[in-house]
């Protein structure tokens, strides 16, 4: 460790979980002022490497160091003391506590045994300001929405004035404007000499933020290379181990059929007179910044929320708002934006997670037919290329992308013909994304209606036949066919009222 620039290092690190080797013989070094991207498919071992460096997990063999100190036997708190600050992939905030309290979680400023509330607030404001964010430090974090929460986490990490800042997919729930904010903050911090490890599945973002990238595959380091010189194609090939398949065919052919589902004048807390038409045979993209009401729109359409005003028609018939079960019976399906919290039942098998949307289909006179369950699940597992050891493997152990595909498979099993997909590609690796795009396209070709909500405008622009832009709970623009162009969509979404 002669080189004083080295902030963190792993030598021949191996980490096993029951049944998986998450890291295998990994050598990894990161230096002062460097922003290092970690790239790899879901389950490649990125988060594990990060947990090792933050003291949340320990290597089975090999050594890890931070600023020359071996980490063996140290806990998260000790490692934080060495100057490591981490933003984990899963949000780690306490929802009912205020922004200020969360910023100093476990290390509240104290004077004479009591928490010094005034100092805490002041320092909280300061910490937020450091990354250019201004939030009410007294509001409970769960009133913030996921963007705000993510920014609080970043502010918390940066506020510790770390030597090493680790960000595990900090932007997966953010849209363009907020991503910009995060990138600026990270660059700003790096310029002050902090080493940064940055995980993301979005290549364009990596190019903006990182100097170098380490590609991880199946727990091994494939290569570390400067971001500037490598092409995306090259990097993706390294991640996958093979050349990537072609992107989903761009159809760009808005459907001319009559809308299967339409909304007029929906009003709720976040919707302010939304009109929307969903047509069979096309992929309808919904773009918009955070909080523009995309999730609410889907929830209202499928009957999960009851809007205060407005009308929803399904195949021309007015439907009772809020009748979720009836809407499902009539062919709607929704995949929620938070897969882990709202999508999967972790302890149940992949098969049961799929057929759960319609158990009658695999029952005979009220009795579940095990073989029918297996057959139905296997068909969909094959069709969507879900990687699982057995159909009965608990879904909680699958990688995010595969979980997402299983949640999607649910509605194929139920035979739904209107699919509302809320951020189906969030936190999903390139390969799985491609497969999901292909599925969406196939469904549209099959005459079904697909509604695709995504915060990644790039992918909307790439694969949608028609895009509706939401702003302030209203549809402000619609692009179809060749009008669809990345910059135009971006501009429309971000434009001020």
């Amino acid at each position, binding site marked *: 460790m002669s080189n004083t620039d080295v902030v963190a290092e792993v030598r021949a690190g191996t980490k*096993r*979980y*029951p*049944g998986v080797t998450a890291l295998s013989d990994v050598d990894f070094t990161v230096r002062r002022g460097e922003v290092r991207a970690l790239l790899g498919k879901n389950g490649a071992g990125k988060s594990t490497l990060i947990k090792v460096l933050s003291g949340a997990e320990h290597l*089975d063999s090999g050594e890890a160091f931070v600023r020359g100190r071996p980490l063996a036997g140290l806990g998260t708190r000790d490692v934080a003391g060495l100057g490591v600050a981490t933003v984990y992939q899963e*949000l780690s*905030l*306490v*929802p*009912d506590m205020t922004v200020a309290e969360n910023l100093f979680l476990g290390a509240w400023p104290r004077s004479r045994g009591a928490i010094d509330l005034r100092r805490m607030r002041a320092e909280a404001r300061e910490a937020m300001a450091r990354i250019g964010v201004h939030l009410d430090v007294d509001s409970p974090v*769960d009133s913030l929405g996921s963007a705000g*929460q993510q920014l609080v986490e970043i502010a918390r990490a940066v506020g510790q004035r770390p030597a090493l800042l680790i960000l595990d997919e900090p932007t997966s729930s953010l849209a363009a404007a907020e991503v910009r904010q995060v990138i600026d903050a990270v660059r700003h911090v790096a310029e002050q000499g902090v080493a940064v490890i940055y995980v993301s599945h979005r290549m364009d973002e990596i190019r903006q933020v990182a100097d170098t990238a380490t590609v991880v595959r199946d727990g091994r380091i494939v290569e570390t290379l400067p971001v500037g010189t490598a092409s995306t194609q090259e990097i993706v090939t390294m991640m996958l181990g093979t050349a990537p398949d072609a992107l989903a065919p761009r159809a760009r052919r808005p459907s001319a059929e009559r809308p299967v589902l339409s909304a007029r004048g929906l009003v709720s807390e976040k919707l302010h007179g939304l009109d929307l038409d969903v047509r069979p045979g096309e992929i309808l993209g919904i773009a918009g910044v955070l909080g523009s009401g995309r999730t609410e729109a889907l929830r209202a359409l499928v009957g*999960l929320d009851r809007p205060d005003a407005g009308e929803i028609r399904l195949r021309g018939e007015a439907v009772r708002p809020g009748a*979720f*079960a009836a809407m*499902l019976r009539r062919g709607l399906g*929704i995949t*929620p934006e938070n897969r*882990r*919290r*709202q*999508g*999967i*039942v*972790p*302890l*149940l098998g992949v098969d*049961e997670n799929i057929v*759960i*949307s*319609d*158990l*009658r289909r695999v*029952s005979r006179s*009220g*009795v*579940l037919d*095990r073989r029918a369950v297996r057959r139905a699940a296997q068909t969909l597992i094959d069709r969507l290329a879900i990687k699982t050891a057995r159909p009965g*493997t*608990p*879904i*909680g*152990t699958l990688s995010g992308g595969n979980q997402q595909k299983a949640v999607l498979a*649910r509605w194929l099993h*139920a035979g739904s013909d209107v699919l509302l997909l809320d951020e189906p590609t969030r936190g999903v690796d390139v390969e799985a994304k491609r497969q999901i795009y292909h599925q969406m396209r196939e469904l549209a070709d099959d005459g079904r209606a697909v509604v695709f909500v995504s915060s990644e405008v790039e992918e909307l622009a790439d694969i949608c036949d028609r895009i509706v832009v939401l702003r302030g709970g209203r549809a402000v623009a619609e692009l179809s066919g060749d009008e669809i162009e990345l910059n135009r969509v971006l501009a429309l979404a971000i434009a001020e009222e």
Partner: protein
Amino acid sequence: MSTTTPTGPPVASTPARAGGRLGRNTQRLNEIGLIGAIVVLFVVLAATAPGFLTVTNQLAILRDAATVGVVAWAMTLVIVAGEIDISIGPAVAFSSVLLAKASGEWQVPFALAVLLCLAVGLLLGAGAGFLRARWGIPSFVATLGLWSGLRGLAQYMTDGLPVPLEPNGFLDVLAGSIAGIPTPAIIMAVLFGVFLFVANRTAYGRSVFAVGGNAEAARLAGISVARIRVILFATTGLLAAVSGLLLAARLGSGNGGASVGLEFDVIAAVVIGGTSLAGGKGSLLGTLLGVAFITFIGNGLVLLGVNAFFQDVVRGVIIVGAVLINVLLSHRKGAP
């Protein structure tokens, strides 16, 4: 809230491990461990407790097992769904009182009185389930209300006195045996079969597991979570009523003060059987073993002449010990 709840198993240093992948193996392991414990217990009691091995005593054990077992099947599903029902003891006592009052004082025809008991049990349970499902009142609180209210009502209606039942053929059968096997044990066995089937082979049963594993996901997948919850508590209510009928038959009367603390025996049997109070996993086979374990211990302690008060100490130690061993077993399995 929402953002928070770590779905996984609660604690310990390795939160992820106990979870999914091993779920099923761990379950099996736990059952094997329990079978081992029961065999040891059986051998020890056979050697030390005079009269333990006799046929009559084994039949008596079967009869006693039904006291806990009948309700324990329904409780297993309640706990798998992440809920709890602490109203069992009072519900059983209340049902026995209702039968005696209805068929006696209120002159309801006996068959109708039996149906009334079952219907009331079902409705009371469904009521608690409704409070949980519709208004989100924690099931601990909803059933605590029943716990207090039903005990009070049962005692109030009877002034604390047993209400005699006119003997009749039906009661004699309930209190007696069929082909040498105590009727309660037969009912318990039949219900076990029904619940085993329901839990594993019906849409309802699997939905219970889904709701316990992740209620929000289950709801978004189209499962009527509220309906499931109402049915769950209606079922424990119904089976508590059945237990009440068996009790009334056995005692020849309705007793408002009976079955004190039964809820804890039932919950203990389920938890010893490896069903997690966190919801999402559990098995009826485990509960069956848990019931056997608890019943053997109860019987053995009496036959060994252990001080009555000290029996409670033993029971407390054993409940914690059994759950601890489950946990240790799954940890060992979880280690690399």
